[in-house]
C-alpha cells in the first residue's frame, strides 16, 4: 500500500479509536505493530543486539503510543507524530538495555515492509510484570490479557462497576509503563 494511503488509514483508525471505537483501535495497533517490529529487528541486526530484545522494545513503544495518543492533534497528519514518538521511545528503550542505537526519524513512515514473522518468545515474564501491580489492577490485567475476558465479564467477576474496571485498567497501563522503565536487565 502506498505510504500516503497507509497514513490516511492509520489516522482514520486512531481518530475513531480516540472517540472510543475499540475495533478501530485494534486495527490500528495490529497494523502498526509489524512495522515497529521490522524497525526494532533491523536495529538489533545492525547493532548486533540479540533479536529477542526487539519484541520487548516493540511492546514498550506500543504502550508509549497508547499513553501519549492524546498529544496527537487529530487535524494534523499522523506520520510525523507517530515517527517522532516511536523514534524517541525506541532509542530510550534500547538505551536502558545498555544499547546505543540510532533510529532515523523518517524510519517509521518510510518503512516499506512490515515484518509479519511470528514474534520471538516473549521475554518479559508476565507474572513478574503483574507482581509490580496492585490488586485490583493486577487481576484486571491478568483477566483481560491472559484470560481474554472483556471489561464487562471482568467487572461482573470482580463485582466492580465497568467504569471502575476501566479506570483501574488505565492506571494499570500507566503503572506498566513505569515498570518497563525501571525494569532491570540481567542480560546486560
Amino acid at each position, binding site marked *: 500500500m502506498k505510504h500516503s494511503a497507509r497514513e490516511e488509514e492509520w489516522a482514520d483508525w486512531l481518530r475513531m479509536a480516540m472517540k472510543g471505537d475499540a*475495533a478501530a*483501535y485494534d486495527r490500528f495497533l495490529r497494523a502498526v505493530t509489524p512495522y515497529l517490529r521490522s524497525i526494532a529487528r533491523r536495529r538489533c541486526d545492525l547493532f548486533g543486539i540479540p533479536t529477542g530484545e526487539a519484541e520487548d522494545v516493540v511492546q514498550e513503544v*506500543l504502550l508509549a503510543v497508547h499513553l*501519549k*495518543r492524546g*498529544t496527537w492533534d487529530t487535524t494534523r497528519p499522523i506520520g510525523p507524530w507517530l515517527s517522532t514518538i516511536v523514534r524517541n521511545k525506541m532509542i530510550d528503550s534500547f538505551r536502558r538495555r545498555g544499547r546505543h542505537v540510532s533510529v532515523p526519524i523518517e524510519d517509521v513512515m518510510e518503512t516499506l515492509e512490515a515484518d509479519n514473522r511470528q514474534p520471538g518468545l*516473549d521475554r518479559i515474564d*508476565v507474572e513478574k510484570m503483574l507482581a509490580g501491580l496492585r490488586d485490583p489492577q493486577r487481576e484486571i490485567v491478568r483477566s483481560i490479557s491472559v484470560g481474554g475476558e472483556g471489561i464487562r465479564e471482568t467487572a461482573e467477576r470482580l463485582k466492580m462497576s465497568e467504569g471502575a474496571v476501566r479506570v483501574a485498567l488505565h492506571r494499570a497501563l500507566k503503572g506498566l509503563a513505569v515498570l518497563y522503565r525501571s525494569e532491570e536487565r540481567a542480560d546486560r
Partner: protein
Amino acid sequence: MQTDDLIQLLTKDAPVKRRFNHVFVTAIAVSLLVSFVLLLITLGLRQNLLQAAQTPRVAFKIGLTVLLAITGSQVALRIGKPGVPLRPALLALALPAAALVIGVVSELAVVPAAQWEPSLVGRYPAACVFFVSLLSLAPLTGLIYALRQAAPENPAKAGAVAGLASGALAACVYALHCPDDSPLFVATWYLAAIALVTSAGALLGKRLLRW
C-alpha cells in the same frame, strides 16, 4: 507478556478522556487564577492601576510580560507534542526580546544618565524577584502536570520551557501590583526572577517529565 495480549489490553482502554491541548489550556487558566488570587491576598493590586496602565512605562511593562507569557506558553505547548515543529514558536520569542531592547534603549535615551542606576534598582527589587518566583509556583505546577501527559523529547529542556512560561505568567500577575515602572527595572529584576524559575523548571523537568 505476548504482544497480542498487550494489544488486547490497550484496545480495552481506547477512548481518550482529555486531550493534551485541553489539559494544557485548563492548567494555564486555573493556575493563572490561583496566582492572581494569591496576589490579591498578599500584595493587592496597585493603586489606581487603570490610570497607571495608560502611562507608557506601565503599559510597556504589562504588554511585555503578556507578550512573553503568550509566546512562552506556545513553546511549552508545542514542546510536548511529538512531530510538531518548534521553530516557529522559538522564533516568536524574538518579539518580546526585541520589545525589551527597544524599551531599554528608549529609556536610556529619555532618562538622564544620573538617573539610570536609581531607575534600574527601583524601590522593591528583592520583592519583585521574591514575588514573581512565589506567584510562579501555581503555573509551574500546572504546566509540569500538563506536560507529564505529553511526550517531550528532552525532559530538562521541556521543564525549562515550562519554567519560562510560568515565570512570564507570574510576571504578568506581579505587574498588576509592581510600583517600579522603568524598563531598566523590568529588564533586570523581572528577567532575573524568570531566569530563576526557568532553572527550577529545568531541574523539575529532568526528574518529572521522563516518559
